[in-house]
């Protein structure tokens, strides 16, 4: 392929930002102008990213370009296109484009058009900057940009109408409300992720301090130096964890997953954007980007400093465990969720857990290339099916005017395309062959087993069953089950909406069917053309595991079919009768009480500390000390000074002195007789006195 001039690819991420600024300028223009311009600018990104990816993949080379942004910090803005970043950019930009097209219709008539499209394009631009950045600081700029955009979009409907909430209005767990308004959801997203971001920022600072650069390429070449200096400072493991905190928070890993759940208050198109293309994938991408570099740094020191290698292995064990836990915990919550988008949100966090598991386990096999190949494959397949699922959910919620699946059912008849799309995507999510989700998830299970990461492996396997069940439960409850009262008023979504999700749903199947044909190329590209990697690796398929996992999927689907389609019963009706089961249900429904614990400890605790300090320190001590005690002391001192010395001085000057001078003046007055002879006499006496005095002194 004939390559384009490299500078041009900068526009892959710059173009949505230009679109964003333009949307602000277009504020007074009514109608679809902003939507069309946004679609146009994102299309430009999609095309440029694709050309970049073709350039990288077909020509087998890394394409990069940099402009100096801040010289003294070695920060440039440009792009770094290797196999990973270019393919990631393709996934991000094309999914964003489809979601933007869907939004044209979905957000039509919304009064906040300018805000929506400005932040939508800003979101896409930030994500692409993050993906294509060639240094950590520019990456961080994009990273924070996605945080801002998600905050604004999650809180898009900031007037907090009840139909935009997440959770059952009025429900409380441990006394903490379990329903969230859009403005609350936005706040949570920002605060939760920023706590992790401080870790990322501190990590960048440490790297810049030790290496004098934050460029990714330099990071690769100096990985060993970095690891060794960290090890010698004794902070290698703490550093790695702190550095990854941003990724964990962004990708909603346990225990930072809470923000993602309540991010559902945004428009559904935004949920699709956050869950499929941008934001939560940033954390996984960061791990994919950094894992090879961290691993490489440890490996070059393996012979001389085996301790470094074992600390790094410990780090990857932690990553795998966090991933496994997240996959399992969030999966269990999805089983009982009653809100369509909430099921999908839990599922996203759970699937992100698989990706973290892939990164951790891949490195633990000793072939970090597996982390990148397996992690990225699942990221891609998840992006596609989750985008489709959310977009269908948006159309369904739009047409039944309810977010609860209890108000749905039987929608398969009026919404055939939506039904087909959701079914295909859900089957991919549940991991049924030959959908793409099957291949990518199976690879993770394989790798986890190969890495001997048994706890995460078991958690991953159990989650396969859970995933298959909740995915199909959702499909049956929405489209089949008992027809709801909405059945007759509902009709299929507008083509601008269904074309994007139907395309994605078909892609899940098509990419799955074609998987065996391109799997090897994908893996070769990703593991040889990505920063920090050189050797081509493939996971070894384990047929026992494949069989087990397929059986689990079938079993999960079977239960869902049996309950919701064959029997058409609500298991909750029987759960209600058993106190033990009900307790379990509440535990899952209230998200393992994690949210309540956070609010009790951090939010309420923080508020308690703040009010206590304000009341007992700031008001009582500081205010009283400076504005009462010190003025009082000075006042008293002044009072005393006034009473004693000042009175005496007063007395001295105003009474004693006055009296003295009046006596004196009286005396003088007496000698001033006005007779010249008297004056002459006085003068003679005066001279005589002076003469006598001088004589005596002399």
């Amino acid at each position, binding site marked *: 392929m004939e390559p384009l001039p490299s500078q041009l690819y900068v526009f892959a991420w710059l173009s949505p930002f230009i679109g964003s600024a333009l949307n602000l300028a277009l504020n007074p223009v009514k109608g679809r102008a902003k939507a069309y311009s946004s679609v146009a600018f994102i299309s430009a990104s999609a095309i440029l990213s694709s050309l970049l990816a073709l350039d990288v993949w077909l020509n087998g080379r890394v394409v990069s370009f940099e402009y100096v942004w801040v010289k*003294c910090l070695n920060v440039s803005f440009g792009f770094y296109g290797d196999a990973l970043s270019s393919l990631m950019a393709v996934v991000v930009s094309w999914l964003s484009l489809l979601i933007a097209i869907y939004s044209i219709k979905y957000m039509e008539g919304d009064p906040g058009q300018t805000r929506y499209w400005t932040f939508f394009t800003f979101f896409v631009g930030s994500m692409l900057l993050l993906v294509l950045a060639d240094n950590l600081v520019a990456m961080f700029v994009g990273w924070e940009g996605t*945080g801002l955009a998600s905050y604004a979009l999650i809180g898009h409907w900031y*007037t907090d109408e009840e139909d935009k909430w997440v959770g059952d209005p009025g429900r409380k767990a441990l006394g903490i409300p379990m329903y969230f308004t859009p403005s609350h959801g936005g706040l949570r997203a920002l605060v939760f992720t920023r706590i992790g971001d401080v*870790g990322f*920022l*501190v990590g*960048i*600072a440490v790297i810049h301090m030790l290496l004098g650069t934050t460029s990714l390429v330099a990071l690769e070449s100096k990985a060993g130096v970095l690891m060794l200096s960290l090890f010698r400072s004794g902070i290698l493991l703490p550093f790695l964890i*702190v550095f990854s905190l941003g990724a964990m928070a962004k990708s909603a890993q346990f225990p930072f997953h809470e923000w993602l759940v309540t991010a559902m208050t945004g428009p559904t198109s935004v949920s699709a954007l956050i869950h499929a293309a941008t934001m939560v994938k940033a954390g996984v991408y960061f791990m994919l980007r950094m894992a090879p570099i961290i691993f490489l740094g440890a490996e070059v020191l393996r012979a001389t400093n085996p301790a470094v290698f074992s600390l790094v292995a410990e780090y990857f064990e932690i990553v795998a465990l966090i991933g496994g836990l997240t996959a399992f915990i969030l999966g269990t919550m999805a089983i009982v969720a009653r809100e369509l988008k909430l099921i999908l949100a839990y599922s996203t966090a759970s699937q992100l857990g698989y990706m973290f598991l892939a990164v951790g386990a891949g490195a633990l096999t000793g072939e970090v290339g597996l982390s990148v190949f397996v992690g990225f494959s699942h990221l891609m397949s998840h992006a596609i099916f989750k985008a489709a699922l959310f977009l269908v959910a948006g159309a369904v919620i739009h047409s039944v005017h309810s977010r609860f699946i209890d108000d749905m059912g039987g929608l398969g008849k009026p919404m055939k395309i939506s039904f087909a799309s959701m079914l295909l995507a859900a089957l991919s999510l549940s991991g049924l062959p030959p959908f793409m989700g099957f291949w990518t998830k199976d690879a993770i299970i394989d790798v986890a087993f190969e890495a001997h990461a048994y706890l995460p492996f078991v958690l991953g396997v159990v989650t396969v069953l859970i995933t298959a069940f909740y995915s199909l439960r959702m499909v049956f409850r929405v489209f089949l089950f008992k027809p709801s009262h909405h059945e007759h008023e509902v009709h299929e979504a507008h083509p601008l909406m269904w074309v994007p999700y139907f395309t994605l749903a078909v892609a899940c199947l098509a990419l799955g069917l074609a998987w065996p044909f391109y799997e090897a190329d994908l893996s070769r590209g990703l593991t040889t053309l990505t920063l920090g990697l050189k050797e081509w690796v493939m996971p070894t398929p384990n047929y026992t595991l494949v069989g087990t996992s397929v059986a689990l999927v079938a079993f999960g689907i079977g239960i869902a079919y049996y309950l919701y389609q064959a029997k058409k019963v609500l298991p909750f009706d029987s759960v209600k009768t058993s106190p033990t089961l009900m307790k379990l249900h509440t535990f899952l429904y209230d998200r393992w009480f994690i949210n309540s614990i956070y609010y009790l400890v951090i939010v309420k605790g923080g508020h308690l500390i703040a009010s206590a300090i304000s009341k007992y320190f700031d008001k009582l001590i500081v205010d009283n000390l*400076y504005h009462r005690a010190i003025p009082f002391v000075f006042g008293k001192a002044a009072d005393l000074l006034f009473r004693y010395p000042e009175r005496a001085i007063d007395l001295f000057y105003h009474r004693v002195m006055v009296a003295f001078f009046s006596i004196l003046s009286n005396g003088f007055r007496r000698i001033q007789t006005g007779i010249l002879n008297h004056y002459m006499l006085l003068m003679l006496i005066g001279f005589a006195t002076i003469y006598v005095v001088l004589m005596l002194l002399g």
Partner: protein
Amino acid sequence: MIVLNYPLILSTVVVPYVAAFVSWVSGNRLSPKAHAALNSASLAYGFAVFLALSCTYGLGQVIRDPEIYFIPTLGRFSFLMDASTFPALLSISLVTAVVSLYSVPYMEHRFEELEKDGIKAPSWGSYFLLYTLFSASMIGCLLGTNTIEFYIFLELTLIPSFLLIAFYGYGDRVRIAIMYLIWTHVGAVLFLLGALSVGFVSGFDFINPSTGEMLLGLGDGLPASTLYVAMWLMIVGLLVKVAVFGVHMWLPYAHAEAPTPVSALLSPCLIGIGALMLLRIVYVLFPSAIQTASPLLFVWALITMIYGGFMALVQKDFKRLLAYSSISQMGYLLLGLASMNAFGMSGMILHYMAHAFGKAILFMAAGTLIVMLHGLRDITKMGGLSSKLPYTGGLALIGFMHITGIPPTLGLWSEYLIVRGAIEYSMKLSPSYFIPSFIGLVVAIGLSTAYAFLTMKKVFYGRLPEGLKGAVKAKRSLLLPMGLLAAAGILSFILVGPILDPLMEVLKTLYGL
């Protein structure tokens, strides 16, 4: 060093002084808008001069006025600018110029309110006399080469700002104005005592105006017994001005009860000067002795960041919340300083700028609500205001982004630099401080994010209370000044290189960092 042919740098103080007196003399013969135009133009003139000088000569070297004034026993007074004062000069001149435009709609409202209370406050001419004297004196603070020169300008900021609070403030304004005067004056005097003890031994110049060099280590000539006393007098004196934890008592009152345009200058611009001078004077006089003070300053900074954040979380009054936020932000500045390296120091200077833009926007937003909602300041009575005042809400968001370091605002760079400096400092002390300082930073930055965006939610998002259904969009004359500063903050995020590169260079060459 570049020596100018004309005293252009001094003119950035003199021209506004002249404008201020013209305003005063013309009194009611000029309309409020004409007053604002005159004074804003005089301050914008300074902005233009600083910008033009930096573009013409670059910021790589010191730019100085031709005259050096010899003052018997006090040394030499001269006026100059370098890359380390440029960001602050740019922000003060821009913020003061913009806020004087904002003063017109705001003070119209304030005069009406005062009249309703039966008070006849001094009129427009006096307001602008005091306003511009105050503003130009802040610029003067940064131009000098001599500690006494700085002290004189510092006192010149105090008197007009004291009178502005006393004449036009809210609540118990006279008492608060006096409180402000006394406490910050105590700070200034402590500084002066330190400066005198150095000055009578080694001279009062901290910059040699003939060469443009910083007189590094001038205070080291003092006998060891007085050296530390003098240094700590200067540090504590300036920290009272900065209002860090423990000596912040005057700030929440003064900044909350000052008329809002004055709050918008006091809060970001004036108090930050104290932090800048800790670098420009105290660090320069005692470059080695101050190293012993830095661990204490570092912890003090973290405590201030966290303390201010906690206090901001529980405030109900919008302006008082912003005042506590300023205390927390001063902690950021102090943290940059305490790091004692070029990253932290440049972070401090850039954060001065980011905070100047952000906090001025926020005070103006709070003021806009006061004007549009009949004096409403109580956050608990607000909510959903973005639906009625969308631009005010959007601009307030940009204001908060500045102080929490979210792109595309300058705050991102200053936050990174401060974190960068702080990490290097604590790791150099001992790598085992890595985790404690990380935890300190997480709590501090987390709290800043929390109070900032919680306030956005409480004020601008959520349900609109019944009583506010009648609210209307803010006047353009209130929004435009905020918009200008927002644009400046975003522009300086993108164009940070030309400001930061020479700054970093100067910190290395002039300050030896």
